[in-house]
């Protein structure tokens, strides 16, 4: 749609205009109901809170809102792909590329990760008998950094400059040579900001679990969700730091003319290494807490102790460790050579072995009530 503003003609896709209109209408409705039901003090309270349960609620709430947005993106993708040679609304070419990029990025960074962080925030202090996380203020800072990153990423769409580089942001497509627009900058900065928040929260959780356990709550008695959280926090600490480094290098490539990921001296494969050293542990950052949840729920409702507790803890630790040794299986097509590929095929096969053992032990818990 062409808008003329101040005598200049400006092209804006109709989905962005629809989003503006929708946001204004919904914003109005929300604003009115906030005043009508006098909820302003509640919002003010949540904005300033350092309470772990309230921050956890915020994490889950905004994780869910971002999840809805990413889910709508998925519906657009499916509608465009429903039949061959389809022309659904505006979702062709660049728009389509933007939609699958935002879908992937939002689901991983702004929906799945924060929802689990929220649950950790709520449950871990309760499970180990701590009053709050070790650094409540840092916890709030971590959440608001995540919130800022998520908002920045969403604002890109409202300004019609969403990134279109895939959620993996592969160089050299993501360098300024091939995507000179601000879209990819939104990707770099929003991930950088929210990643920093995630690192803070991970540090916080580690310190909490190590230092603030109630008397008698030994490591050998800790619930498995807390164990999973501890290992996940270590994974986040390493993986997100590597991602931050990759994003910094990409930022320098994009803004300051360095050539880490392209040109004769740089190599786009460096980006892939950095990204997947983050990306594969990320899988387990999402999976390990879920395993912990299964274990705790199943053992509680079958009124039994966790079967093979030491083995369970050991496999969580081993899965966490092995998750750093398999990243090349995302890069088998890159031509790192037969030896590298074979070695990483072996380490990759090791990992499900651990996983399988853990699952089987988990199933045996059912044999109870």
């Amino acid at each position, binding site marked *: 749609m062409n808008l003329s503003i101040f005598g200049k003609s400006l092209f804006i896709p109709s989905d962005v205009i629809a989003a503006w209109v929708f946001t204004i209408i919904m914003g109005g409705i929300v604003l009115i109901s906030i005043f009508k039901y006098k909820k302003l003090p509640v919002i003010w309270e949540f904005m300033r809170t350092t309470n772990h349960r309230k921050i956890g609620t915020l994490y889950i709430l905004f994780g869910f809102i971002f999840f809805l947005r990413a889910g709508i993106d998925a519906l657009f993708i499916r509608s465009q792909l429903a039949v061959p040679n389809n022309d659904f609304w505006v979702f062709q070419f660049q728009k389509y590329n933007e939609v699958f990029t935002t879908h992937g990025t939002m689901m991983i960074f702004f929906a799945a990760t924060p929802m689990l962080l929220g649950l950790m925030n709520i449950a871990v202090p309760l499970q180990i008998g701590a009053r709050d996380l070790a650094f409540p203020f840092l916890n709030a800072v971590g959440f608001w950094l995540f919130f800022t990153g998520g908002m920045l990423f969403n604002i890109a769409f409202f300004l019609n400059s969403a990134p279109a580089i895939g959620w993996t942001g592969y160089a050299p497509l993501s360098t300024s040579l091939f995507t000179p627009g601000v879209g990819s900058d939104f990707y770099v900065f929003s991930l950088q900001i929210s990643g920093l928040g995630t690192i803070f929260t991970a540090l916080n959780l580690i310190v909490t679990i190590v230092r603030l356990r109630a008397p008698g709550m030994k490591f050998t008695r800790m619930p498995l969700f807390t164990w999973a959280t501890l290992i996940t926090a270590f994974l986040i600490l390493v993986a997100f730091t590597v991602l931050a480094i990759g994003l910094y290098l990409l930022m320098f490539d994009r803004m300051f003319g360095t050539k880490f990921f392209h040109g004769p001296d740089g190599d786009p494969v460096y980006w892939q290494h950095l990204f997947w050293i983050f990306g594969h542990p990320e899988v387990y950052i999402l999976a390990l807490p879920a395993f912990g949840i299964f274990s705790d729920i199943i053992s509680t409702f079958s009124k039994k102790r966790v079967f093979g507790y030491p083995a369970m803890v050991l496999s969580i630790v081993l899965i966490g460790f092995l998750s750093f040794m398999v990243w090349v299986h995302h890069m088998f097509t890159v031509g790192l*050579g037969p030896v590298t590929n074979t070695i990483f095929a*072996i380490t990759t096969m090791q990992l499900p072995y651990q996983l399988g053992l853990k699952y089987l032990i988990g199933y045996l818990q059912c044999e109870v009530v």
Partner: protein
Amino acid sequence: MKKIAILPFIMLLAGCQSITVLDPKSSTGKEQAYLIWFSLAIMVIVLLVVFILFTRFVIRYRYTEKKAEYIPQDVKGNLKYELTWTIVPFLLLAVLAVPTLKITFDQSPEMAAEANTNGVHINVTAEQFRWTFEHKNSKTVHNELIIPENKDIVFHLSSKDVIHSFWIPELAGKVDVIPNKELIYVIKNAEIGEYDGKCAEFCGIQHANMTFDVKVVSLDEYNQYLKQSSN
């Protein structure tokens, strides 16, 4: 009985009948498809065991009013079971590992300097958004690849701009095409036929249309094709 209403929808899955990757037309592709089927078979065994146990546990040990006051016995462990589920998966993995490692080692794409292969050499250059194929007598064609049957076809892959990925689903798996770096990929013994090739790494706005046609012809026809001027 209402659940039977779901059945017609399961029939819709019949739409997934032509998965070309699972019915490849070259010996390279056949080795890869064999790995897919083989690992699928092993996984189905594991899946069945897990599903059967899971269903049994859920039905047999479910909560009922009668068990409201029941406190189960504390079980310390069971050496026999624990050994079984530690050793059996290991054996399954070992069985899976042998062909996987062999084929991975044979087929992995290599850097140009390390490769030493006889066969029909073809230079493949990818750029946004077009493929260029250069045959040994410098005949150059865009978006159309013609290769002889029953030969080792040695592709020299390189990119002019971003990362692309060279993929002919009916012949073999994908290999990335990377700027400033030449990769070698060998496809062996293709069968005569016409196939579709495409770029399999998101490379920009026209990525979806970055396709090419592949024709596998007899050696005579290929030689004749080479003699025609490239216009």
